[in-house]
């Protein structure tokens, strides 16, 4: 992932986080506004209660006044009773008021003032009633227009009005304040909701865009994959074609080389056969006319010719072996592989058994550790292992008892097989070279053409494997064969 992509992802994450944050703020604002509204309701109720209480008091006052006047004018005892009941009620109502306005010092003060005035007024009224009872008619209060009476009731009315309006003012002020708060929280909520909305739309847009890009990328990847597969298939086919071409070339070349070689060998033999009558002739000449036989003729017939023929022969024989090796390699390369489950333990045992004669003769200790089963071409793996084991026996050191260990293990989808010996070892500079055709390493005291390991490598490659060597001079050698555990069938061709 590149830097731009990472920054973009970080931005998306930040946007989503912002969205959630805005959601919390909006919810908070709504809750706050709701609580404020509830508060206002309570306060309004409170104010109405107070106003109702004030109105109630006023009503009681008026009822007292009415009862007093009734009594004063008519002298009826029923009016007196009404008066007494109402007068007893008034202090309770004032106490209720005091309770309701306990949170407001101004109103408390007014209530206390009202209490005094009410007491004052009640006293006046009681006095006037007492006077009436006593039959005094000229006492103050007897008239409906008594000045003291009017003043006190006026004061009471004024005070209740003041209290009422004060309460109303208070309610208004509070409501205004609360309304401002509600407005603010609502605004905050709306702003937060708007941002939330924007962020969600932005995020949805980005996610949609990302998903679209992802599916496009997926499609491209699929196409690329298909391309890659076909490219690999094409390349493989090309390689197989090239390989088949080389194999065919090697086959034709080696085959056609044999034909002249047959002639060289044949006519060399004819020459060799011709030496015999010639030397007989020479002997006869030496016997009968010794002077005619020159040293040159003697040298030619007795030394030069046989030696030349001998060299031609050995060279031709060697060339024949080399050509045969190439032929064998090319033929092996053209053979159809037949993968099957190969019991490597049985295979190694059979190879060791087939070499038992030499093993016993040289006193070699063979150690075959358990090997995993491999699905591969049995003939090829057998040739590889028998070549490696034969080499191990062939290049042991004469002055120490030979030990050859064959071991193997699974490594994921491959199998590693090792053939280790304590023989004469291979110079590290030759570790690659020994796998080349006709190349050998070390003292040339053993027969061979330098074909075995070339053959091993060619076979290992055909089985989809590799072969390598670790060794130091005089310290033995380990050949490591790495093979796929399961060789795919139908590799190579028999064309």
């Amino acid at each position: 992932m590149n830097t731009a992509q990472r920054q973009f992802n970080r931005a998306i994450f930040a946007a989503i986080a912002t969205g959630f944050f805005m959601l919390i703020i909006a919810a908070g604002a709504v809750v706050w506004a709701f609580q404020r509204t509830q508060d206002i309701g309570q306060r309004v109720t409170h104010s109405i209660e107070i106003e109702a209480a004030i109105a109630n008091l006023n009503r009681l006052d008026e009822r007292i006044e009415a009862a007093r006047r009734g009594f004063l004018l008519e002298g009826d005892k029923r009016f007196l009773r009404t008066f007494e009941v109402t007068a007893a009620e008034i202090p309770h109502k004032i106490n209720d008021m005091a309770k309701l306005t306990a949170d407001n010092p101004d109103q408390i003060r007014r209530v206390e003032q009202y209490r005094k005035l009410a007491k004052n007024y009640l006293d006046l009224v009681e006095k006037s009633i007492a006077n009436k009872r006593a039959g005094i008619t000229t006492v103050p209060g007897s008239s409906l227009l008594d000045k003291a009476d009017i003043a006190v009731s006026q004061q009471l009315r004024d005070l209740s009005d003041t209290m009422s309006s004060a309460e109303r003012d208070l309610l208004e002020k509070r409501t205004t304040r609360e309304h401002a708060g509600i407005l603010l929280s609502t605004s905050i909520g709306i702003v937060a909701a708007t941002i939330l909305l924007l962020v969600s739309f932005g995020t949805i847009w980005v996610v949609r865009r990302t998903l679209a890009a992802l599916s496009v990328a997926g499609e491209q990847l699929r196409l690329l994959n298909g391309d890659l597969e076909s490219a690999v298939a094409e390349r493989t086919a090309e390689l197989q074609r090239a390989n088949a071409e080389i194999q065919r070339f090697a086959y034709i070349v080696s085959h056609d080389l044999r034909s002249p070689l047959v002639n060289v060998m044949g006519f060399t033999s004819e020459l060799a056969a011709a030496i015999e009558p010639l030397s007989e002739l020479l002997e006869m000449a030496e016997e009968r006319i010794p002077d005619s036989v020159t040293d040159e003729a003697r040298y030619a017939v007795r030394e030069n010719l046989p030696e030349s023929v001998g060299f031609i022969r050995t060279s031709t024989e060697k060339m024949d072996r080399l050509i045969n090796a190439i032929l064998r390699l090319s033929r092996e390369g053209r053979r159809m592989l037949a993968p099957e489950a190969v019991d490597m333990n049985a295979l190694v045992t059979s190879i060791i058994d087939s070499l038992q004669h030499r093993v016993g003769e040289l006193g070699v200790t063979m150690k075959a550790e358990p090997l995993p089963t491999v699905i591969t071409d049995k003939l090829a793996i057998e040739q590889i292992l028998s070549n490696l084991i034969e080499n191990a026996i062939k290049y042991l050191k004469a002055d120490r008892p030979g030990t050859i260990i064959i071991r193997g293990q699974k490594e994921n989808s491959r199998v590693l097989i090792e053939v280790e010996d304590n023989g004469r070892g291979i110079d590290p500079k030759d570790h690659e070279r020994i796998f080349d055709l006709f190349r050998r390493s070390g003292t040339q005291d053993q027969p061979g053409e330098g074909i075995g390991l070339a053959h091993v490598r060619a076979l290992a490659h055909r089985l989809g494997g590799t072969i390598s060597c670790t060794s130091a001079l005089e310290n033995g050698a380990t050949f490591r064969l790495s093979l796929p555990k399961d060789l795919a069938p139908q590799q190579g061709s028999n064309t």
Partner: protein
Amino acid sequence: MRKPQTVNIVMIEDDEGHARLIERNIRRAGVNNEIRHFMEGTAALQYLFDSADGPAKNGPALVLLDLNLPDMSGIDVLQRMKAPDSPLKRTPVVVLTTTDDKVEIERCYDLGANVYITKPVNYETFAQAIRQLGLFLSVIQVPDTDVS
């Protein structure tokens, strides 16, 4: 009893050296039958099938056949000779070639080759094989061709 006829040897071999070596060894075995040498398939087929003194028209023959010919494969010659309607289907054919490829050898026998000899580079073996072939030639009864 059939009247013994001289068997002509038809050698189809593009390599003159090989032809010479084969001839010498046949002669060394004491076989003195006439040897007709052809360097290419076309001329050989023409002789085998159409020539007035060729084996199809005149007398028994034995064919020594090399598989590598310049103008065709020896296999083609073998196929023509051993075809079901060929007058030469009973004529013995000795395939002589450098190939020791198992598939090729099997194919030749499948097509009706009577003997298959690999020309080994080891001359002694080769010479011996040819000489034995010569001895073999001197005793075998070569059937008449189907001249109908």
